Protein backbone atom coordinates (compact mmCIF):
# COMPACT_ATOMS: atom_id res chain seq x y z
CA UNK A 1 0.00 0.00 0.00
CA UNK A 2 1.53 3.33 -1.02
CA UNK A 3 2.00 5.91 1.69
CA UNK A 4 -0.63 8.55 2.36
CA UNK A 5 1.61 11.32 1.10
CA UNK A 6 2.20 9.61 -2.22
CA UNK A 7 -1.50 8.91 -2.60
CA UNK A 8 -2.40 12.50 -1.84
CA UNK A 9 0.22 13.70 -4.26
CA UNK A 10 -1.23 11.49 -7.01
CA UNK A 11 -4.72 12.75 -6.32
CA UNK A 12 -3.60 16.37 -6.52
CA UNK A 13 -1.52 15.76 -9.63
CA UNK A 14 -4.46 13.94 -11.21
CA UNK A 15 -6.67 16.90 -10.44
CA UNK A 16 -4.17 19.30 -11.97
CA UNK A 17 -3.71 17.17 -15.08
CA UNK A 18 -7.46 16.69 -15.38
CA UNK A 19 -7.89 20.45 -15.50
CA UNK A 20 -5.68 20.72 -18.56
CA UNK A 21 -7.40 17.76 -20.20
CA UNK A 22 -10.76 19.38 -19.48
CA UNK A 23 -9.81 22.63 -21.20
CA UNK A 24 -8.47 20.87 -24.28
CA UNK A 25 -11.38 18.44 -24.46
CA UNK A 26 -13.75 21.41 -24.25
CA UNK A 27 -12.13 22.79 -27.39
CA UNK A 28 -12.52 19.46 -29.20
CA UNK A 29 -16.14 19.28 -28.11
CA UNK A 30 -16.80 22.75 -29.48
CA UNK A 31 -15.57 21.77 -32.93
CA UNK A 32 -17.61 18.62 -32.85
CA UNK A 33 -20.72 20.40 -31.69
CA UNK A 34 -20.43 23.13 -34.29
CA UNK A 35 -19.84 21.06 -37.38
CA UNK A 36 -19.44 17.39 -36.46
CA UNK A 37 -15.72 17.64 -37.01
CA UNK A 38 -13.25 15.44 -35.19
CA UNK A 39 -10.35 17.84 -35.09
CA UNK A 40 -7.21 15.73 -35.06
CA UNK A 41 -4.98 18.78 -35.42
CA UNK A 42 -6.12 20.15 -32.05
CA UNK A 43 -3.19 18.62 -30.20
CA UNK A 44 -0.80 19.59 -32.98
CA UNK A 45 -1.80 23.22 -32.40
CA UNK A 46 -1.32 22.56 -28.69
CA UNK A 47 2.28 21.55 -29.32
CA UNK A 48 2.71 24.45 -31.71
CA UNK A 49 1.66 26.86 -28.96
CA UNK A 50 4.06 25.15 -26.57
CA UNK A 51 6.86 25.61 -29.09
CA UNK A 52 5.98 29.26 -29.54
CA UNK A 53 6.08 29.73 -25.77
CA UNK A 54 9.48 28.01 -25.59
CA UNK A 55 10.87 29.99 -28.52
CA UNK A 56 9.54 33.24 -27.07
CA UNK A 57 11.23 32.46 -23.76
CA UNK A 58 14.54 31.56 -25.40
CA UNK A 59 14.53 34.62 -27.66
CA UNK A 60 13.38 37.30 -25.26
CA UNK A 61 14.10 35.81 -21.87
CA UNK A 62 10.65 36.91 -20.74
CA UNK A 63 8.14 34.72 -18.97
CA UNK A 64 6.53 32.28 -21.44
CA UNK A 65 3.10 33.22 -20.11
CA UNK A 66 3.47 36.54 -21.92
CA UNK A 67 3.46 34.71 -25.25
CA UNK A 68 -0.26 34.14 -24.66
CA UNK A 69 -0.85 37.74 -25.69
CA UNK A 70 0.32 36.75 -29.16
CA UNK A 71 -0.77 33.16 -29.52
CA UNK A 72 -4.37 33.46 -28.34
CA UNK A 73 -5.45 36.08 -30.93
CA UNK A 74 -3.33 34.42 -33.59
CA UNK A 75 -4.85 31.00 -32.96
CA UNK A 76 -8.33 32.50 -32.85
CA UNK A 77 -7.85 34.02 -36.29
CA UNK A 78 -6.31 30.79 -37.58
CA UNK A 79 -9.30 28.86 -36.31
CA UNK A 80 -11.77 31.18 -37.98
CA UNK A 81 -9.78 31.01 -41.22
CA UNK A 82 -9.58 27.22 -41.05
CA UNK A 83 -13.31 26.90 -40.64
CA UNK A 84 -14.22 29.45 -43.27
CA UNK A 85 -11.62 28.59 -45.91
CA UNK A 86 -11.14 24.86 -45.52
CA UNK A 87 -13.70 22.93 -43.52
CA UNK A 88 -16.79 24.82 -44.68
CA UNK A 89 -15.87 24.02 -48.26
CA UNK A 90 -15.97 20.25 -47.88
CA UNK A 91 -18.96 18.31 -49.20
CA UNK A 92 -21.55 18.23 -46.41
CA UNK A 93 -22.49 14.60 -47.11
CA UNK A 94 -19.02 13.30 -46.28
CA UNK A 95 -17.99 16.12 -43.96
CA UNK A 96 -17.30 14.06 -40.84
CA UNK A 97 -14.95 11.65 -42.60
CA UNK A 98 -13.24 14.13 -44.87
CA UNK A 99 -12.70 16.68 -42.11
CA UNK A 100 -10.87 14.03 -40.10
CA UNK A 101 -8.51 13.57 -43.01
CA UNK A 102 -8.12 17.28 -43.59
CA UNK A 103 -7.30 18.03 -39.96
CA UNK A 104 -5.03 14.99 -39.92
CA UNK A 105 -3.20 16.50 -42.89
CA UNK A 106 -2.87 19.78 -40.99
CA UNK A 107 -1.48 17.90 -37.99
CA UNK A 108 1.12 16.20 -40.20
CA UNK A 109 2.02 19.53 -41.73
CA UNK A 110 2.53 21.17 -38.33
CA UNK A 111 4.53 18.23 -36.99
CA UNK A 112 6.73 18.19 -40.09
CA UNK A 113 7.33 21.94 -40.02
CA UNK A 114 8.15 21.92 -36.29
CA UNK A 115 10.59 19.08 -36.86
CA UNK A 116 12.12 20.90 -39.79
CA UNK A 117 12.46 24.28 -38.08
CA UNK A 118 13.37 23.23 -34.55
CA UNK A 119 14.68 19.67 -35.19
CA UNK A 120 13.42 16.69 -33.23
CA UNK A 121 15.37 17.66 -30.12
CA UNK A 122 13.39 17.69 -26.88
CA UNK A 123 12.87 21.20 -25.58
CA UNK A 124 12.17 22.43 -22.12
CA UNK A 125 11.69 25.89 -20.64
CA UNK A 126 14.00 26.76 -17.78
CA UNK A 127 12.40 29.17 -15.36
CA UNK A 128 13.45 30.67 -12.06
CA UNK A 129 10.50 28.98 -10.42
CA UNK A 130 10.76 25.71 -12.36
CA UNK A 131 12.12 23.74 -9.43
CA UNK A 132 10.13 25.30 -6.62
CA UNK A 133 7.29 23.35 -5.13
CA UNK A 134 4.72 23.59 -2.42
CA UNK A 135 4.48 21.20 0.50
CA UNK A 136 0.93 20.09 1.15
CA UNK A 137 0.49 17.51 3.93
CA UNK A 138 3.47 15.55 2.67
CA UNK A 139 2.61 15.93 -1.02
CA UNK A 140 5.03 17.95 -3.14
CA UNK A 141 3.29 19.94 -5.84
CA UNK A 142 5.36 21.84 -8.38
CA UNK A 143 4.44 25.51 -8.67
CA UNK A 144 4.45 25.36 -12.48
CA UNK A 145 1.77 22.67 -12.37
CA UNK A 146 -0.35 24.91 -10.19
CA UNK A 147 0.10 27.80 -12.60
CA UNK A 148 -0.81 25.55 -15.53
CA UNK A 149 -3.92 24.39 -13.71
CA UNK A 150 -4.86 27.94 -12.81
CA UNK A 151 -4.51 28.96 -16.43
CA UNK A 152 -6.61 26.05 -17.63
CA UNK A 153 -9.22 26.61 -14.94
CA UNK A 154 -9.49 30.33 -15.68
CA UNK A 155 -9.81 29.67 -19.41
CA UNK A 156 -12.47 27.04 -18.82
CA UNK A 157 -14.40 29.36 -16.52
CA UNK A 158 -14.12 32.13 -19.10
CA UNK A 159 -15.42 29.79 -21.79
CA UNK A 160 -18.30 28.75 -19.57
CA UNK A 161 -19.29 32.34 -18.80
CA UNK A 162 -18.99 33.29 -22.46
CA UNK A 163 -21.21 30.44 -23.59
CA UNK A 164 -23.79 30.85 -20.85
CA UNK A 165 -24.06 34.56 -20.36
CA UNK A 166 -23.18 36.40 -23.55
CA UNK A 167 -25.26 37.01 -26.63
CA UNK A 168 -22.56 35.36 -28.73
CA UNK A 169 -22.66 32.34 -26.44
CA UNK A 170 -26.40 32.02 -26.91
CA UNK A 171 -26.00 32.25 -30.65
CA UNK A 172 -23.24 29.66 -30.61
CA UNK A 173 -25.24 27.24 -28.49
CA UNK A 174 -28.27 27.75 -30.69
CA UNK A 175 -26.14 26.99 -33.73
CA UNK A 176 -24.90 23.81 -32.10
CA UNK A 177 -28.38 22.69 -31.10
CA UNK A 178 -30.18 23.30 -34.35
CA UNK A 179 -28.53 25.11 -37.18
CA UNK A 180 -31.58 25.69 -39.35
CA UNK A 181 -33.68 26.92 -36.47
CA UNK A 182 -30.86 29.23 -35.39
CA UNK A 183 -30.73 30.69 -38.87
CA UNK A 184 -34.48 31.22 -38.83
CA UNK A 185 -34.08 33.12 -35.60
CA UNK A 186 -31.78 35.51 -37.40
CA UNK A 187 -28.39 34.18 -36.34
CA UNK A 188 -25.62 34.35 -38.92
CA UNK A 189 -24.69 30.72 -38.27
CA UNK A 190 -21.75 30.67 -40.67
CA UNK A 191 -20.03 33.51 -38.88
CA UNK A 192 -20.88 32.14 -35.44
CA UNK A 193 -19.51 28.74 -36.45
CA UNK A 194 -16.29 30.37 -37.58
CA UNK A 195 -15.89 32.23 -34.28
CA UNK A 196 -16.68 29.04 -32.38
CA UNK A 197 -13.86 27.33 -34.20
CA UNK A 198 -11.53 30.18 -33.36
CA UNK A 199 -12.54 29.85 -29.73
CA UNK A 200 -11.72 26.13 -29.81
CA UNK A 201 -8.29 26.80 -31.24
CA UNK A 202 -7.70 29.53 -28.64
CA UNK A 203 -8.09 26.84 -25.95
CA UNK A 204 -5.23 25.00 -27.65
CA UNK A 205 -3.09 28.14 -27.40
CA UNK A 206 -3.74 28.47 -23.67
CA UNK A 207 -3.32 24.74 -23.08
CA UNK A 208 -0.08 24.69 -25.05
CA UNK A 209 1.43 27.52 -23.03
CA UNK A 210 0.38 25.79 -19.81
CA UNK A 211 1.91 22.58 -21.09
CA UNK A 212 5.18 24.27 -22.01
CA UNK A 213 5.66 25.39 -18.41
CA UNK A 214 6.36 21.96 -17.01
CA UNK A 215 6.70 19.49 -19.86
CA UNK A 216 9.38 18.56 -22.34
CA UNK A 217 8.09 19.10 -25.85
CA UNK A 218 9.04 17.52 -29.17
CA UNK A 219 7.29 17.57 -32.55
CA UNK A 220 5.60 14.15 -32.41
CA UNK A 221 4.32 14.71 -28.86
CA UNK A 222 0.87 15.59 -30.15
CA UNK A 223 0.04 11.93 -30.78
CA UNK A 224 0.30 11.32 -27.05
CA UNK A 225 -2.30 13.98 -26.45
CA UNK A 226 -4.82 13.38 -29.19
CA UNK A 227 -5.52 9.79 -28.11
CA UNK A 228 -6.49 10.60 -24.52
CA UNK A 229 -8.39 13.70 -25.61
CA UNK A 230 -10.48 11.80 -28.14
CA UNK A 231 -11.15 9.07 -25.59
CA UNK A 232 -12.33 11.77 -23.18
CA UNK A 233 -14.81 13.31 -25.59
CA UNK A 234 -16.27 9.90 -26.49
CA UNK A 235 -16.55 8.80 -22.86
CA UNK A 236 -18.12 12.13 -21.96
CA UNK A 237 -20.49 11.91 -24.88
CA UNK A 238 -19.63 13.65 -28.16
CA UNK A 239 -20.78 17.24 -28.13
CA UNK A 240 -21.29 17.66 -24.39
CA UNK A 241 -18.88 20.14 -22.77
CA UNK A 242 -19.80 19.28 -19.14
CA UNK A 243 -19.51 15.60 -20.07
CA UNK A 244 -16.05 16.18 -21.51
CA UNK A 245 -14.96 18.11 -18.42
CA UNK A 246 -16.20 15.43 -16.00
CA UNK A 247 -14.67 12.62 -18.07
CA UNK A 248 -11.41 14.58 -18.23
CA UNK A 249 -11.23 14.95 -14.44
CA UNK A 250 -12.16 11.30 -13.79
CA UNK A 251 -9.79 9.86 -16.36
CA UNK A 252 -6.96 12.25 -15.48
CA UNK A 253 -7.32 11.20 -11.86
CA UNK A 254 -7.44 7.51 -12.84
CA UNK A 255 -4.28 7.90 -14.91
CA UNK A 256 -2.48 9.62 -12.08
CA UNK A 257 -3.51 7.01 -9.50
CA UNK A 258 -2.71 4.07 -11.77
CA UNK A 259 0.80 5.40 -12.24
CA UNK A 260 1.62 4.23 -8.71
CA UNK A 261 1.17 0.49 -9.31
CA UNK A 262 1.64 0.36 -13.11
CA UNK A 263 4.15 3.04 -14.08
CA UNK A 264 3.60 5.94 -16.49
CA UNK A 265 3.41 3.97 -19.74
CA UNK A 266 0.81 1.40 -18.80
CA UNK A 267 -1.26 3.98 -16.92
CA UNK A 268 -1.98 5.67 -20.26
CA UNK A 269 -3.93 2.63 -21.42
CA UNK A 270 -6.75 3.61 -19.05
CA UNK A 271 -7.96 6.10 -21.64
CA UNK A 272 -8.20 3.53 -24.38
CA UNK A 273 -9.79 0.93 -22.13
CA UNK A 274 -12.38 3.50 -21.08
CA UNK A 275 -12.96 4.32 -24.75
CA UNK A 276 -13.55 0.71 -25.77
CA UNK A 277 -15.69 0.00 -22.72
CA UNK A 278 -17.82 3.07 -23.35
CA UNK A 279 -18.41 2.20 -26.99
CA UNK A 280 -19.26 -1.39 -26.19
CA UNK A 281 -21.60 -0.63 -23.27
CA UNK A 282 -22.93 2.86 -23.85
CA UNK A 283 -21.98 4.10 -27.32
CA UNK A 284 -23.49 7.55 -26.85
CA UNK A 285 -21.15 8.25 -23.94
CA UNK A 286 -22.08 8.94 -20.36
CA UNK A 287 -23.32 12.49 -20.65
CA UNK A 288 -24.12 12.72 -24.33
CA UNK A 289 -27.53 13.73 -25.53
CA UNK A 290 -29.41 13.11 -28.75
CA UNK A 291 -26.48 14.32 -30.82
CA UNK A 292 -24.03 11.70 -29.66
CA UNK A 293 -26.26 8.80 -30.59
CA UNK A 294 -25.91 9.49 -34.25
CA UNK A 295 -22.14 9.65 -34.46
Amino acid at each position, binding site marked *: MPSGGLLLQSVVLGLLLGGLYALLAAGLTLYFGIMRVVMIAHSAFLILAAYVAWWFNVRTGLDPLLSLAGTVPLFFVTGVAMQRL*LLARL*RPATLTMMSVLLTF*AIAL*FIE*GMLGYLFTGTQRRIQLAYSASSLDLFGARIAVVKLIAFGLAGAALLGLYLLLKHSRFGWALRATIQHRDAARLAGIDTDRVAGYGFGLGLATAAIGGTALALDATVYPSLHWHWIGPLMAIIVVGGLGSIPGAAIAAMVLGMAQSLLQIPLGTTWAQTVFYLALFAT*LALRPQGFFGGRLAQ*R*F
Partner: protein
Amino acid sequence: MRSVSKARVWLGLPVLLAGVGLVLSFPSLAPNPYLLSVGIVVLNYAVLSTAWNFMGGFTGYISLGHGALAGLGAYGTALLITKAGMPSFAALFAATAIVALLAIPLGFAALRVRGASFVIVSIALVLILLLVFQSWASLTGGSSGLVVPRPFPQLLRPEHHRVFYYLFAGLLALALLCWWLIDRSRFGLGLKAVREDEDKAESLGTPTFAYKLVIFTVSAAFTALGGGLYALWFGDLDPVFQFSILSGAYMVLMALLGGVRNLFGPVLGALIVGIGLEYFKVEYGNTPLHLVASGLLLAVVVMFMPDGVIPSVSNVFGRFFQPTRASIREVSAEQLREEARR
Protein backbone atom coordinates in the same frame (compact mmCIF):
# COMPACT_ATOMS: atom_id res chain seq x y z
CA MET B 1 -25.77 1.88 -71.47
CA ARG B 2 -25.00 -1.59 -72.69
CA SER B 3 -22.82 -0.46 -75.56
CA VAL B 4 -20.96 1.88 -73.24
CA SER B 5 -20.11 -0.91 -70.82
CA LYS B 6 -19.11 -3.12 -73.76
CA ALA B 7 -16.82 -0.42 -75.04
CA ARG B 8 -15.31 -0.12 -71.60
CA VAL B 9 -14.54 -3.84 -71.60
CA TRP B 10 -12.85 -3.60 -74.99
CA LEU B 11 -10.90 -0.59 -73.89
CA GLY B 12 -10.15 -1.97 -70.47
CA LEU B 13 -9.03 -5.48 -71.35
CA PRO B 14 -5.85 -4.55 -73.27
CA VAL B 15 -4.96 -2.02 -70.58
CA LEU B 16 -5.46 -4.65 -67.90
CA LEU B 17 -3.38 -7.22 -69.80
CA ALA B 18 -0.64 -4.68 -70.41
CA GLY B 19 -0.65 -3.80 -66.71
CA VAL B 20 -0.43 -7.43 -65.65
CA GLY B 21 2.36 -8.01 -68.17
CA LEU B 22 4.27 -5.02 -66.88
CA VAL B 23 3.90 -6.12 -63.25
CA LEU B 24 5.01 -9.66 -64.05
CA SER B 25 8.00 -8.65 -66.15
CA PHE B 26 9.22 -5.92 -63.78
CA PRO B 27 11.69 -8.19 -61.92
CA SER B 28 13.46 -9.00 -65.20
CA LEU B 29 13.42 -5.36 -66.27
CA ALA B 30 14.64 -3.88 -62.99
CA PRO B 31 18.34 -3.11 -63.40
CA ASN B 32 19.30 -3.63 -59.77
CA PRO B 33 18.02 -5.23 -56.56
CA TYR B 34 17.30 -1.81 -55.06
CA LEU B 35 14.71 -1.02 -57.72
CA LEU B 36 13.25 -4.48 -57.27
CA SER B 37 12.88 -3.80 -53.54
CA VAL B 38 11.15 -0.51 -54.37
CA GLY B 39 8.79 -2.56 -56.55
CA ILE B 40 8.08 -4.82 -53.57
CA VAL B 41 7.42 -1.84 -51.30
CA VAL B 42 5.01 -0.38 -53.84
CA LEU B 43 3.24 -3.73 -54.22
CA ASN B 44 3.00 -3.97 -50.44
CA TYR B 45 1.44 -0.51 -50.33
CA ALA B 46 -0.95 -1.55 -53.09
CA VAL B 47 -2.01 -4.65 -51.14
CA LEU B 48 -2.54 -2.68 -47.92
CA SER B 49 -4.36 0.15 -49.63
CA THR B 50 -6.64 -2.26 -51.51
CA ALA B 51 -7.29 -4.04 -48.22
CA TRP B 52 -8.20 -0.69 -46.65
CA ASN B 53 -10.49 0.00 -49.56
CA PHE B 54 -12.72 -2.95 -48.62
CA MET B 55 -13.84 -0.87 -45.66
CA GLY B 56 -13.26 2.68 -46.90
CA GLY B 57 -14.44 2.25 -50.47
CA PHE B 58 -17.60 0.24 -49.96
CA THR B 59 -18.95 1.65 -46.71
CA GLY B 60 -17.32 5.07 -46.63
CA TYR B 61 -16.05 4.44 -43.10
CA ILE B 62 -12.56 5.87 -42.99
CA SER B 63 -10.13 4.03 -40.77
CA LEU B 64 -6.83 5.62 -39.84
CA GLY B 65 -5.88 2.54 -37.86
CA HIS B 66 -5.25 -0.05 -40.53
CA GLY B 67 -1.55 0.42 -39.97
CA ALA B 68 -2.07 -1.23 -36.60
CA LEU B 69 -3.79 -4.23 -38.20
CA ALA B 70 -0.86 -4.65 -40.58
CA GLY B 71 1.49 -4.35 -37.61
CA LEU B 72 -0.46 -6.99 -35.73
CA GLY B 73 -0.21 -9.28 -38.74
CA ALA B 74 3.53 -8.66 -38.92
CA TYR B 75 4.19 -9.16 -35.22
CA GLY B 76 1.78 -12.11 -35.07
CA THR B 77 3.65 -13.85 -37.88
CA ALA B 78 7.03 -13.08 -36.36
CA LEU B 79 6.07 -14.21 -32.85
CA LEU B 80 4.44 -17.41 -34.07
CA ILE B 81 7.65 -18.27 -35.89
CA THR B 82 10.10 -17.33 -33.15
CA LYS B 83 8.14 -18.25 -30.01
CA ALA B 84 5.86 -21.06 -31.21
CA GLY B 85 8.26 -22.52 -33.76
CA MET B 86 5.73 -22.58 -36.58
CA PRO B 87 6.80 -22.75 -40.24
CA SER B 88 6.87 -19.30 -41.85
CA PHE B 89 3.81 -19.45 -44.05
CA ALA B 90 1.70 -21.41 -41.58
CA ALA B 91 2.49 -18.62 -39.11
CA LEU B 92 1.42 -16.04 -41.68
CA PHE B 93 -1.99 -17.63 -42.12
CA ALA B 94 -2.43 -18.28 -38.41
CA ALA B 95 -1.61 -14.64 -37.64
CA THR B 96 -4.10 -13.53 -40.28
CA ALA B 97 -6.79 -15.70 -38.70
CA ILE B 98 -6.00 -14.25 -35.27
CA VAL B 99 -6.22 -10.67 -36.54
CA ALA B 100 -9.51 -11.45 -38.29
CA LEU B 101 -10.87 -12.83 -35.00
CA LEU B 102 -9.64 -9.76 -33.13
CA ALA B 103 -11.35 -7.56 -35.68
CA ILE B 104 -14.76 -8.87 -34.59
CA PRO B 105 -14.82 -7.38 -31.06
CA LEU B 106 -13.02 -4.29 -32.38
CA GLY B 107 -15.57 -3.81 -35.10
CA PHE B 108 -18.31 -4.48 -32.59
CA ALA B 109 -17.13 -1.55 -30.48
CA ALA B 110 -16.27 0.70 -33.41
CA LEU B 111 -19.22 0.13 -35.71
CA ARG B 112 -22.15 0.41 -33.34
CA VAL B 113 -22.09 4.13 -33.80
CA ARG B 114 -21.48 6.16 -36.92
CA GLY B 115 -18.36 7.50 -38.52
CA ALA B 116 -16.83 9.83 -35.97
CA SER B 117 -16.47 7.22 -33.24
CA PHE B 118 -15.13 4.74 -35.76
CA VAL B 119 -12.31 7.07 -36.71
CA ILE B 120 -11.55 7.75 -33.06
CA VAL B 121 -11.40 4.04 -32.26
CA SER B 122 -9.18 3.38 -35.25
CA ILE B 123 -6.68 5.99 -34.10
CA ALA B 124 -6.88 4.78 -30.50
CA LEU B 125 -6.08 1.27 -31.72
CA VAL B 126 -2.79 2.40 -33.22
CA LEU B 127 -1.80 4.38 -30.14
CA ILE B 128 -2.63 1.64 -27.65
CA LEU B 129 -0.86 -1.05 -29.67
CA LEU B 130 2.22 1.12 -30.06
CA LEU B 131 2.23 1.57 -26.29
CA VAL B 132 1.82 -2.15 -25.62
CA PHE B 133 4.35 -3.36 -28.16
CA GLN B 134 6.95 -0.84 -27.06
CA SER B 135 6.53 -1.54 -23.36
CA TRP B 136 6.12 -5.30 -23.39
CA ALA B 137 9.76 -5.81 -24.25
CA SER B 138 10.01 -9.36 -22.93
CA LEU B 139 7.64 -10.58 -25.65
CA THR B 140 8.11 -8.17 -28.53
CA GLY B 141 11.67 -7.03 -28.11
CA GLY B 142 10.38 -3.51 -27.43
CA SER B 143 12.07 -0.62 -29.14
CA SER B 144 15.16 -2.63 -30.05
CA GLY B 145 13.05 -4.53 -32.58
CA LEU B 146 12.33 -8.11 -33.46
CA VAL B 147 14.20 -10.17 -36.02
CA VAL B 148 12.07 -12.45 -38.17
CA PRO B 149 13.77 -15.62 -39.48
CA ARG B 150 13.79 -15.79 -43.26
CA PRO B 151 11.48 -18.31 -44.87
CA PHE B 152 14.00 -19.20 -47.59
CA PRO B 153 17.41 -19.09 -45.89
CA GLN B 154 19.20 -20.64 -48.87
CA LEU B 155 18.25 -17.87 -51.29
CA LEU B 156 20.58 -14.99 -52.11
CA ARG B 157 19.31 -11.43 -51.77
CA PRO B 158 18.21 -10.75 -55.39
CA GLU B 159 16.42 -14.12 -55.64
CA HIS B 160 14.82 -13.49 -52.27
CA HIS B 161 13.49 -10.18 -53.57
CA ARG B 162 12.26 -11.84 -56.74
CA VAL B 163 10.32 -14.55 -54.88
CA PHE B 164 8.68 -12.04 -52.60
CA TYR B 165 7.87 -9.76 -55.49
CA TYR B 166 5.76 -12.51 -57.02
CA LEU B 167 4.22 -13.41 -53.65
CA PHE B 168 3.12 -9.81 -53.16
CA ALA B 169 1.83 -9.64 -56.75
CA GLY B 170 -0.20 -12.82 -56.13
CA LEU B 171 -1.63 -11.41 -52.92
CA LEU B 172 -2.55 -8.19 -54.70
CA ALA B 173 -4.30 -10.16 -57.44
CA LEU B 174 -6.26 -12.09 -54.81
CA ALA B 175 -7.30 -8.91 -52.99
CA LEU B 176 -8.35 -7.24 -56.24
CA LEU B 177 -10.35 -10.31 -57.27
CA CYS B 178 -12.18 -10.35 -53.94
CA TRP B 179 -12.91 -6.62 -54.18
CA TRP B 180 -14.21 -7.08 -57.73
CA LEU B 181 -16.47 -9.98 -56.70
CA ILE B 182 -17.89 -8.10 -53.71
CA ASP B 183 -18.36 -5.01 -55.88
CA ARG B 184 -20.75 -6.92 -58.14
CA SER B 185 -22.54 -8.88 -55.42
CA ARG B 186 -25.70 -8.20 -53.46
CA PHE B 187 -23.49 -7.90 -50.38
CA GLY B 188 -21.53 -5.13 -52.10
CA LEU B 189 -24.75 -3.38 -53.00
CA GLY B 190 -25.78 -3.42 -49.34
CA LEU B 191 -22.42 -1.97 -48.33
CA LYS B 192 -22.72 0.83 -50.84
CA ALA B 193 -26.19 1.51 -49.52
CA VAL B 194 -24.57 2.03 -46.11
CA ARG B 195 -22.20 4.51 -47.71
CA GLU B 196 -24.94 6.47 -49.41
CA ASP B 197 -27.53 6.57 -46.66
CA GLU B 198 -27.20 4.27 -43.70
CA ASP B 199 -30.61 5.10 -42.21
CA LYS B 200 -32.45 4.39 -45.42
CA ALA B 201 -30.49 1.20 -46.03
CA GLU B 202 -31.39 0.02 -42.57
CA SER B 203 -35.05 0.87 -42.94
CA LEU B 204 -35.16 -1.04 -46.23
CA GLY B 205 -34.02 -4.17 -44.42
CA THR B 206 -30.27 -4.22 -45.10
CA PRO B 207 -28.55 -5.77 -42.08
CA THR B 208 -26.14 -2.84 -41.96
CA PHE B 209 -24.35 -3.71 -38.74
CA ALA B 210 -23.66 -7.31 -39.79
CA TYR B 211 -22.53 -6.19 -43.23
CA LYS B 212 -20.16 -3.61 -41.79
CA LEU B 213 -18.73 -6.13 -39.35
CA VAL B 214 -18.14 -8.73 -42.08
CA ILE B 215 -16.41 -6.31 -44.43
CA PHE B 216 -14.30 -4.92 -41.58
CA THR B 217 -13.15 -8.46 -40.81
CA VAL B 218 -12.33 -9.13 -44.47
CA SER B 219 -10.46 -5.85 -44.68
CA ALA B 220 -8.54 -6.64 -41.49
CA ALA B 221 -7.60 -10.10 -42.77
CA PHE B 222 -6.16 -8.78 -46.02
CA THR B 223 -4.32 -6.04 -44.15
CA ALA B 224 -2.82 -8.60 -41.78
CA LEU B 225 -1.76 -10.78 -44.73
CA GLY B 226 0.01 -7.80 -46.27
CA GLY B 227 1.69 -6.92 -42.99
CA GLY B 228 2.72 -10.51 -42.27
CA LEU B 229 4.19 -10.99 -45.72
CA TYR B 230 6.11 -7.75 -45.25
CA ALA B 231 7.52 -9.13 -41.99
CA LEU B 232 8.70 -12.29 -43.76
CA TRP B 233 10.31 -10.26 -46.50
CA PHE B 234 11.86 -7.44 -44.50
CA GLY B 235 12.93 -9.60 -41.58
CA ASP B 236 13.12 -6.85 -38.96
CA LEU B 237 10.25 -5.22 -37.05
CA ASP B 238 10.18 -2.05 -35.00
CA PRO B 239 7.02 -0.99 -33.14
CA VAL B 240 7.48 2.64 -34.14
CA PHE B 241 7.12 1.76 -37.81
CA GLN B 242 4.67 -1.12 -37.48
CA PHE B 243 2.21 0.71 -35.26
CA SER B 244 2.55 4.09 -36.84
CA ILE B 245 -0.45 6.23 -37.51
CA LEU B 246 1.41 7.41 -40.57
CA SER B 247 1.36 4.03 -42.30
CA GLY B 248 -2.40 3.90 -41.84
CA ALA B 249 -2.64 7.42 -43.21
CA TYR B 250 -0.64 6.42 -46.28
CA MET B 251 -3.18 3.68 -47.03
CA VAL B 252 -5.97 6.25 -46.89
CA LEU B 253 -4.03 8.74 -48.97
CA MET B 254 -3.25 6.17 -51.67
CA ALA B 255 -6.82 4.92 -51.89
CA LEU B 256 -8.29 8.41 -51.96
CA LEU B 257 -5.76 9.68 -54.45
CA GLY B 258 -6.46 6.83 -56.85
CA GLY B 259 -10.19 6.82 -56.19
CA VAL B 260 -11.98 4.68 -53.62
CA ARG B 261 -14.78 3.67 -55.96
CA ASN B 262 -12.46 2.16 -58.53
CA LEU B 263 -11.02 -1.33 -58.39
CA PHE B 264 -7.57 -0.11 -59.37
CA GLY B 265 -7.74 3.23 -57.58
CA PRO B 266 -5.67 2.14 -54.56
CA VAL B 267 -3.10 0.47 -56.83
CA LEU B 268 -2.65 3.64 -58.82
CA GLY B 269 -2.42 5.65 -55.61
CA ALA B 270 0.16 3.23 -54.22
CA LEU B 271 2.20 3.63 -57.39
CA ILE B 272 2.20 7.43 -57.13
CA VAL B 273 2.64 7.78 -53.38
CA GLY B 274 4.98 4.79 -53.01
CA ILE B 275 7.39 6.07 -55.65
CA GLY B 276 7.08 9.58 -54.25
CA LEU B 277 7.99 8.38 -50.77
CA GLU B 278 11.01 6.45 -52.02
CA TYR B 279 12.11 9.48 -54.01
CA PHE B 280 11.82 11.63 -50.89
CA LYS B 281 13.86 9.14 -48.90
CA VAL B 282 16.65 9.23 -51.48
CA GLU B 283 16.54 12.98 -51.99
CA TYR B 284 16.04 14.36 -48.50
CA GLY B 285 17.03 11.48 -46.24
CA ASN B 286 15.21 11.29 -42.95
CA THR B 287 14.12 14.90 -42.60
CA PRO B 288 10.58 15.54 -41.40
CA LEU B 289 9.83 17.12 -44.77
CA HIS B 290 8.09 13.97 -45.97
CA LEU B 291 5.48 14.68 -43.28
CA VAL B 292 4.95 18.14 -44.73
CA ALA B 293 4.67 16.77 -48.26
CA SER B 294 2.27 13.98 -47.24
CA GLY B 295 0.16 16.44 -45.29
CA LEU B 296 -0.05 18.84 -48.20
CA LEU B 297 -0.87 16.08 -50.68
CA LEU B 298 -3.57 14.68 -48.41
CA ALA B 299 -5.08 18.13 -47.93
CA VAL B 300 -5.09 18.78 -51.69
CA VAL B 301 -6.74 15.43 -52.39
CA VAL B 302 -9.39 15.95 -49.71
CA MET B 303 -10.14 19.50 -50.78
CA PHE B 304 -10.03 19.25 -54.55
CA MET B 305 -10.44 15.66 -55.67
CA PRO B 306 -12.11 13.59 -52.97
CA ASP B 307 -13.14 11.11 -55.67
CA GLY B 308 -9.55 10.51 -56.74
CA VAL B 309 -7.58 10.99 -59.93
CA ILE B 310 -9.25 8.17 -61.89
CA PRO B 311 -12.68 9.86 -61.92
CA SER B 312 -11.11 13.28 -62.50
CA VAL B 313 -9.08 12.04 -65.47
CA SER B 314 -11.84 9.86 -66.88
CA ASN B 315 -14.19 12.83 -66.72
CA VAL B 316 -11.83 14.75 -68.95
CA PHE B 317 -11.48 11.82 -71.34
CA GLY B 318 -15.18 11.11 -71.17
CA ARG B 319 -15.87 14.54 -72.62
CA PHE B 320 -13.87 13.63 -75.70
CA PHE B 321 -14.85 10.03 -76.26
CA GLN B 322 -18.37 9.73 -74.90
CA PRO B 323 -20.12 13.03 -75.47
CA THR B 324 -23.51 11.30 -75.32
CA ARG B 325 -22.89 9.70 -71.97
CA ALA B 326 -25.82 8.66 -69.84
CA SER B 327 -26.84 11.46 -67.54
CA ILE B 328 -27.11 9.28 -64.44
CA ARG B 329 -24.21 10.05 -62.15
CA GLU B 330 -23.17 8.13 -59.10
CA VAL B 331 -24.11 10.67 -56.47
CA SER B 332 -26.33 10.21 -53.51
CA ALA B 333 -29.66 11.89 -53.05
CA GLU B 334 -28.19 13.77 -50.11
CA GLN B 335 -25.40 15.23 -52.22
CA LEU B 336 -27.84 16.39 -54.84
CA ARG B 337 -29.98 17.98 -52.18
CA GLU B 338 -27.01 19.80 -50.78
CA GLU B 339 -25.85 20.93 -54.18
CA ALA B 340 -29.30 22.33 -54.81
CA ARG B 341 -29.23 24.12 -51.47
CA ARG B 342 -26.02 25.96 -52.27
